């Protein structure tokens, strides 16, 4: 595989082994679609935004191997193509040759056509153009592209961490001899400085000469990391102790907490569902009751106006209204029912039927339902708040690093 990591087979193999190990450790059966890796690499190249125009071409070339030259970063399509044409060692050699050829042609483009000519304006021993901070190319562009990407949760944080570490390492390399002396791939004395400016997040390219400040920053960062690790170890010990106390081992405690929250979420959802149904029922009943109220109001007005004249016809209305009250279940509880029917019976008493008994009965029921509706809406709001809290907590538990749970 030579020392190329960004070839789909290598990444695929690493991920497959890692997935198997993780599944064994976690006793899980999570499927990782590593076969999609070709697509991901190609889409990745297209997703990254590059500042330099030259690199856009390079990336376009990588995404479409038929166009122009071969990419600096091997395109999976091209890779599989080359694998199909020539097998084993020959394929790899050809791939390497193509890469070299492409890099040479790139350099030639930049230097005006001749790949063997040194670049104009570049002093001997200085960094190649890709690492020059003014050109904003090479690894810097890739890092910038990654930085410009939309924030993504999960593993992207790890990638950003690596990016940050690379920058820090470049800073350290500036002070220590390791980077400049040992790495023969990076030529010249000011490598670490240039790397720092290339990989710098702040985008400030003028502070290359300031040696003392990065040293202080580095020391404080190291100190912070050490302090953080010490804090984490301490917390780990405390967690271990508390877990023993609770007779909950390891991450099991966290999972059971998640499950408990989920059960709570389910309970709240069920309650809200029931309340919604109740509210819908109450609204329908209220509409019917309002109609009935209009009818009984008219009837009672007639009772008062036509006193004694239509007493026997009134009874016909009363019977119909009683049937309606029975079907509509105007009263729900036993006491209410008794009161309601008592009021209706008043209508049967001669000379007492002028009293607006029906209006009183229905109006009382309307007010009762209205109050119930208001209570239900309030209850729903309360449960909704609790549900929102539980959902937020659950999301926080799912997303936070384990030590913060």
């Amino acid at each position, binding site marked *: 595989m*030579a*020392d190329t*990591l*960004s070839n789909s087979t*290598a*990444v695929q193999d*690493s*991920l497959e*082994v*890692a*997935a198997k*190990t*993780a599944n*064994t*450790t*976690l*006793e*899980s059966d*999570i499927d*990782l*679609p*590593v076969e*999609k890796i070709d697509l991901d690499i190609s889409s990745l190249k297209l997703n990254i935004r590059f500042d330099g125009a030259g690199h856009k071409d390079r990336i376009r070339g990588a995404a479409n191997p038929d166009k122009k030259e071969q990419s*600096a*970063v091997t395109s999976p399509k091209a890779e599989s193509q080359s694998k199909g044409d020539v097998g084993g060692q020959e394929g790899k050699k050809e791939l390497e040759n193509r890469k070299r050829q492409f890099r040479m042609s790139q350099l030639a483009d930049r230097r005006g056509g001749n790949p063997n000519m040194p670049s104009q304006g570049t002093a001997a021993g200085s960094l*190649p153009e*890709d*690492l020059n901070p003014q050109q904003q190319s*090479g*690894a810097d562009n890739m*890092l910038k592209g990654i930085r410009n990407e939309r924030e*993504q949760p*999960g*593993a992207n944080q*790890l990638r950003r961490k*690596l990016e940050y*570490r690379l920058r820090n*390492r470049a800073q350290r390399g500036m002070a220590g001899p*390791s*980077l400049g002396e*040992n*790495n023969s*791939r990076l030529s010249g004395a000011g490598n670490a400085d240039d790397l720092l400016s290339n990989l710098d997040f702040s985008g400030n390219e003028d502070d290359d000469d300031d040696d003392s400040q990065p040293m202080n920053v580095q020391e404080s960062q190291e100190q912070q990391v050490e302090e953080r690790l010490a804090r*984490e170890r301490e917390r*780990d010990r405390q967690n*271990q102790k508390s877990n023993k106390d609770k007779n*909950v*081992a*390891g*991450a*099991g*405690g*966290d*999972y059971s907490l998640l*499950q408990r929250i*989920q059960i709570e979420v*389910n309970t709240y959802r069920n309650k809200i569902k029931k309340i919604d149904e109740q509210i819908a029922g109450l609204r329908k009943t209220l509409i019917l009751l309002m109609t009935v109220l209009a009818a009984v109001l008219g009837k009672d007005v007639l009772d008062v106006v036509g006193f004694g004249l239509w007493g026997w016809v009134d009874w016909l209305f009363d019977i119909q209204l009683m049937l309606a009250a029975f079907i509509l279940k105007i009263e729900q509880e036993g006491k209410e029912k008794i009161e309601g029917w008592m009021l209706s019976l008043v209508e049967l008493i001669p000379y007492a039927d002028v009293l607006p008994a029906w209006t009183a009965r229905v109006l009382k029921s309307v007010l009762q339902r209205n109050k119930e509706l208001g209570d239900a809406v309030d209850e729903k709001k309360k449960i909704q708040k609790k549900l929102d809290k539980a959902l937020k907590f659950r999301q926080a538990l*799912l997303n936070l690093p*384990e*030590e913060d749970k």
Partner: protein
Amino acid sequence: MERPGISVKTGSTAGSIKIDQATENFIGVLDRDHTPEELKRAFDNLVSVMTFETFRKIKARQEVIQLVNDSAEEEKIEEEINKMKEDLIKSVSEIAMLADNYQKE
């Protein structure tokens, strides 16, 4: 409820410490003169730690899915899981490319 296989050391704070160590180790190998095998080993280690962390989170979500009674939410969590998987693959690919680019420069 005991879950064998996830000890406090591997599943808890040690998780983030391990990622730090693996990242540190990988960058260290990248910086110094190294053999392809050394680099591959460091890369595999980093991938393994990243995968473990992602799988741990996925497993937690799967346990939640089992209890969720809302199909829309179940779908949402499943989408989140798929996103995490894709994110992992993409991150690993990006790291590989980043490392290769760093080596070349």
